[in-house]
């Protein structure tokens, strides 16, 4: 499963559940940069998300930041536990997925884990 993990330059991870269904979350690097999260806004089931456009936002004590969708498709499931427990994103960002999207038609540019590690080491 882990081979199917992709990353974006806007610090989201994408896991393919099957060929047209993905699970999306925020990377470990992103949660560290943002610091302790205190609030999350999520879309609703059935919403359309568009590759490269914000679909959620996360709030730390410092700032509110957009989370961008790596894919175009329809939200099939939302991890509503995050609404009450945004700290899960800090404690286990790979487990704390935001949404699952089906009927994926389009994607942004994806990086492999190695490429992403290189990308953030340049950024950081």
């Amino acid at each position: 499963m882990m081979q199917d993990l992709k990353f974006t330059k806007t610090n989201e991870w994408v896991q393919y559940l099957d060929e047209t269904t993905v699970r999306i979350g925020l990377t470990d690097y992103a949660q560290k940069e943002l610091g302790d999260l205190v609030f999350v806004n999520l879309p609703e089931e059935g919403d359309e998300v568009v590759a490269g456009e914000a679909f959620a936002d996360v709030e730390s004590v410092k700032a509110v930041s957009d989370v961008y969708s790596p894919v175009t498709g329809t939200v099939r499931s939302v991890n509503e536990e995050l609404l009450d427990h945004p700290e899960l994103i800090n404690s286990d960002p790979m487990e704390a997925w935001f949404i699952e999207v089906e009927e994926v038609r389009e994607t942004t540019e994806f990086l492999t884990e190695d490429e992403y590690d290189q990308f953030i080491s340049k950024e950081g």
Partner: protein
Amino acid sequence: MKLIFEKGNKGRGCELLPPCDVPITEVNPNFKRNIELHLPEVSETELSRHYTELMKRTFGVNDGFYPLGSCTMKYNPKINDEMAKLPGFSEIHPLQPEDTIQGCLEVMALAEEYLCEITGMDRMSFQPAAGAHGEFTGLHLIRAYHKSRGDKKRDKILVPDSAHGTNPASATMAGFKVINVPSTKEGLVDLEALKKLVGEDTAGFMLTNPNTLGLFEENILEITDTIHQAGGLNYYDGANLNAIMGIARPGDMGFDVVHLNLHKTFSTPHGGGGPGSGPVGCKDLLAKFLPSPQVMKNSDGSFRLEYNNEQSIGRVKAFYGNFLILVRALTYILTLGREGLKNASESAVLNANYMMHQLKETFSIPFPKACMHEFVISLEKLKKEKGVSALDIAKVMLDYGIHPPTMYFPLIIQEALMVEPTETEAKETLDEVIAIYKQIYEEAVNNPESLHNYPLKTFIGRPDEVMAARNPILRYRAE
């Protein structure tokens, strides 16, 4: 310290109100409370001591240096309060007949005239209670304008990525979709990107000028023209007006609507509830949409309140806004006069440049060329190399008896400190602060670990901000 609810005793009170001299009316039992109102019951002595104790724990402009960037924490002259205390202003009722409050109406008319002159606008409303409220009102003027022309597809407001957070928030609250406009490496609006983002759906563009990096938007005329060509309107966020009073006017830069923060630029109280005041001014093309009522001058020189304004967006606050704050702002304008206001802006810019120049060898300053009334420091390198963050630096400043700058803003600068000294600080104060900043930096480099523990001398050390945000306790609950 104890809360006021935890002080005093049952049945105790202060005789601050005069005895009732009118018949007591019975309230309809349907509207009566079922349980007794829980109010503090304290004597005047206890009340007075309570607030004095609270006062000792606060920090204001009267305590020391307060360089909160984009907040313009300038000194509030005492003459402002003296004028606001005059019984003709303070002992009136908002529903009094117009002919008994002509002086108050004249204050509003005069303040409108002067503030329009300063901003290059044609009309102004004083209803909005603060900056973000002004933004919300101004955006509704923009919406009303497009709607009145039958132009219904304009649902997007463009906002630079360096904007105050209130801009996208106000635009969203006013029902618009927010489009982010990137900044260039030089920290200015990316004109080429802007040109690509405008179109038939552009309702307007919100801009602070000088912007939050303390830089004057050099391409301002081309920026506002780009928006106008696309059919949108330009909104001026007046948060940083203190840099340009009497020197440049938003109206001449191509802005159609502005808000001012009287509690920043015009020396009225800021913080502690103020209350604030965020007047909205506009060009003639938007005037008919302003909130009602507007003060108008009659042919005989007297003033009236004009309610007959069919296209008005309606009220945004009860009555006439925070009137006594307006009295203070007008006092400030009349005290300083035309040259004085210009001098205030020039000194504000000079003070910021002096501090930046003195600090630029020590601190990393992302845009080190001449700034306007504020400048931004980045502590990214210090954070990376020594683990000392902008928060650590801000906290230790408290122990030196100075207020920290705005931190972690603007968002496009990592580990930002945004410094706005204002014109009301003397050179000696600036020199002392510069020495403190340098001393703190040296400590951060030589002894980074120690920086995580400050402040030690304040009543409250480091509150748990994360816990406060996750589990806020917003009111007192009786046992």
